């Protein structure tokens, strides 16, 4: 079970993030989570939104270069150490986490970890064996 993440290439100059969020806002697209990877003179804005393909379309129309790729949305329990549990389960199985970022859904008070891994299939197996739940795109939207 994977969700789609929208990645936007931006130059590292003021106002790019607000421009991206403004375009999405005007198109009625909800941002669930956001993280920024800074790599010197450029950066990549990563977004979890309710309508990823619409988001890509409106951003592309505005002149941005946008990629959509697959990530895992992993439910985090509220007990301490749940992040460590996810990390070690994946690590033990030889799955690399390229990057991850977390967010808390206000309405349901649930924390979600968005993770990009190098082996999605293996990660799914390992997490389900560990009883860790993955959220579908629909579930993510309803948060």
């Amino acid at each position, binding site marked *: 079970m994977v969700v789609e993440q929208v*990645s936007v290439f931006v*130059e590292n100059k003021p106002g790019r993030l607000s421009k991206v969020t403004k375009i999405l806002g005007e198109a009625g697209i909800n941002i669930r989570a956001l993280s920024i990877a800074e790599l010197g*003179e*450029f950066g990549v804005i990563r977004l979890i939104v309710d309508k990823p393909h619409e988001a890509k379309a409106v951003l592309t129309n505005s*002149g941005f*270069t946008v*990629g959509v790729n697959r990530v895992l949305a992993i439910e985090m329990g509220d007990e301490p150490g749940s992040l460590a549990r996810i990390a070690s389960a994946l690590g033990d199985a030889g799955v690399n986490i*390229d990057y991850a970022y977390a967010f808390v859904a206000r309405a349901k008070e649930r924390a979600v970890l968005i993770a*990009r891994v190098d082996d999605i299939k293996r990660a799914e197996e390992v997490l389900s064996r560990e009883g860790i739940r993955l959220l579908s795109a629909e579930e993510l939207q309803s948060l």
Partner: protein
Amino acid sequence: MYWDRKAETIQQEELEELQLRRLRAIVDYCYRNSRFYRSKLKEAGVHPGELRRLEDLARLPFTTKEDLRENYPFGMLAVPREEVVRIHASSGTTGKPTIVAYTKKDISTWAELMARVLTCAGVTKRDTIQLIYNYAFFTGGLGFHYGAERVGAAVIPSGVGNSERQLLTMRDLEVTAFSSTPSYALYLAEFARERGIDVGEFSLRTGIFGAEPWMRQRIEEAYGIKAYDNYGLSELCGPGVAVECDARQGLHVWSDHFLLEVIDPESGEVLGPGEKGELVFTTLTKEAMPLLRYRTRDISMLIDEPCECGRTHPRIARLMGRSDDMLIIRGVNVFPSQVEHVLLQFPEVAEHYQIVVDRRRSMDVLRVKVEVTERIFRGEPEELLRLKRELEEKLRSVLGIRAEVTFVEPGTIPRSRGKAQRVVDLRKG
């Protein structure tokens, strides 16, 4: 396969003898028949009789494009007007146009050299060759035309434009060879692909291209041909000065007719083999408009090693750029076309790029800005970082200095027709 085995495989010593004999004759001819050269040689204090060795050539003054412009239209003629049988003209992109005139013998020599060129590229009398050139005023069309007829090939003077008809001709007449500008060749392949036509299925087997930097692999793959680079310029005759042989390790200069020097464009000093500099030619056999030490502003270098094809004429490397475009960065000569050559090897990189030279803490910095499109970015920055590494490595090995590749958003590099805008020099003083 040679067109003129004797001339093309002439022994070094014999070639030099011939060159010296012809050089002395042409300088003497210029002195006697060209007002322009008589005064130029007198000014330089050189008398034709003083040329004893080929090295003495360096004592002669240079001739420049500016000289041709200033003497427009007939000031450079060394024959009476009635001896002229053809006149080509180049449009003056900056200021006055220039013309090139030919006597009957000049046309015949040109055809002969073009026959050598075409044979080098594997064209024989059994071939059908399509010449996709603008025949109006320019030298390309008729240059190839006369050469191909001399070889005995069937020539189709198809001119430029009307891509549909070009393709139809290519297919229906079972064309085996063609020549055009490289950019048109690529455009035509694309045009065909969009219409579901595979030019790779045609009978084509060889092609000759030149005039601008081009990527051999792209053309060869699209057409399923072997592609050869050729070099020439209208002031010397047109195409027909140099061409690649089957080895395709540089272009043989027909130096029994064009005496080559490579000079430092700044100091004018003559450079040795392997040293990058401006090509300078002396026409050894031209009658109507001979040129002594003509500065081409084209940058390349001399390859002075025997070639496996058996031709003894010296080779030049494929063109590296124009001296007008040369940048001196940290003391190293860099040509924008070298950067372009590197970028052409990365088909995923968009054609929009910009070279920025800046000074940071009194140090020259060369940056190459590349627009990020979906062809290079699918969502993960690693793709960009990898590309950056590869590009920088390749640029460093080609340019000899470090270049920094920076990625910018699409549409942010100014679009312009002139390639000059590809380069921005922000250094002061």
